[in-house]
């Protein structure tokens, strides 16, 4: 069994995996990080989105071994203790989550977007979450939350 070594949410992690394991399953079943959700299992809905070296990937079809030696960020890596990440806080403040199943993936897509482009236009936000399907919200409050987060993060001036 190969060993997958990665920086997971800022910490070095080493875990035995099957060569064919997919990242989402390793995160959920071997590392207990259930915030990464599996919905379609085919890379078609974005619920399982995590960041690998800062880029979004659909972890339900991403071979876990690809993450070897990489930095992986999941939804659990965003909040600092009781302090939500500004994106998470904005989602709460504008009442963006409904059922909440797509939300971790949405937040991760938003994170990648704002890391790359701290002042996105509405169109850029839409592009940024165009790989994430939500069945509840119609997306408007999600876009609004990302706009609010970008604005707050700019005001705070600090790095996200």
């Amino acid at each position: 069994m190969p060993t997958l070594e990665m920086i997971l949410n800022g910490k070095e992690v080493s875990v035995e995996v099957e060569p064919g394991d997919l990242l989402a399953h390793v995160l959920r079943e071997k590392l207990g990080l259930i915030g990464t959700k599996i919905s379609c299992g085919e890379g078609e809905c974005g619920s399982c989105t995590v960041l690998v070296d800062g880029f979004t990937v659909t972890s339900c079809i991403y071979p876990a071994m690809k993450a070897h030696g990489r930095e992986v960020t999941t939804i659990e890596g965003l909040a600092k203790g009781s302090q939500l990440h500004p994106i998470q806080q904005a989602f709460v403040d504008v009442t963006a989550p409904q059922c909440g199943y797509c939300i971790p993936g949405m937040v991760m897509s938003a994170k990648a977007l704002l890391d790359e482009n701290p002042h996105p236009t509405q169109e850029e936000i839409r592009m940024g979450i165009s790989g994430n399907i939500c069945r509840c919200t119609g997306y408007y409050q999600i876009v609004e939350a990302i706009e609010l987060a970008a604005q707050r993060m700019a005001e705070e001036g600090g790095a996200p």
Partner: protein
Amino acid sequence: MWDDYLFPHSVKEALDMLEARGADVRIIAGGTDLALQRQGGRNPATVMVDITRISGLERIEERDGYIHVGARVTHAQVAASPLIRSRAGVLAEACGSVGGPQIRNVGTLVGNVVNALPAADGAIGLTALDAQAEVAERTGRRWTPISDLYAGVGRCTVDSCQAMITQLRFKALGDGEGDAFERLAKRKALILPILNAAVVVGVDGGAVKSARIAIGPVATKPFVATDAAEWLIGQAPDAAAAANAAKLAAQTAEPRYSLLRGSAEYRKSMVEVLVRRALTRALALASGEGGGHADS
């Protein structure tokens, strides 16, 4: 299930791994299609040779009058590349419409070709650019026109259990050339197209000098509308020429009925619309209208 997952550090090492481990070993790059094929039981290979850590394959660069795109380059990187956006915009547009951001971050342009689907947006763009692929085998490397890589739907002549494509190359567009990509799909993201079309044209002295029109999925491989392109040569680069060439392209394209994509009649009519729109934009660019290709 897979038995092993290997990271070679050179093309030679990758080819050695294929050789050493036999028929159940294969190349994997982004793996976005492979993971699905595996789930569907359509890919029996059990040892993966992951080429995404081989240095040198990550480049997008201009050499010898060609733009080269390495086998590790993702759709997102192509779509964002200033070089490709300015000198082969059709490919940036095509790659920017594949899947969603997550798939574009992982899936490679070379993989889009190797997967050999006639609807693949990247491959349609490359076909219009008359691109070539460098095939690396144990016997050596050779350049092959990408249109020769198709052995049928989903079947590439380069067997990923024996060889790999290391890079792609195509001529950068210059003055007097223009390009465009058009796509029709059932929604605006996360979807394969009903139809797509990519064109590259050259205009000189008020007449069309060169043209290449690629259309998918209307045949078992990216379809090149040769008759339409040939007819265009010598024509004035105007709307009427675009319309007539599009009509010719539609006559030769043979989309099949597809329960999920639509009727043959509709898609044939749409070939005409898409090719006309692409040609109109490309001819305008080539004629120096709309700011030229550098700003497209």
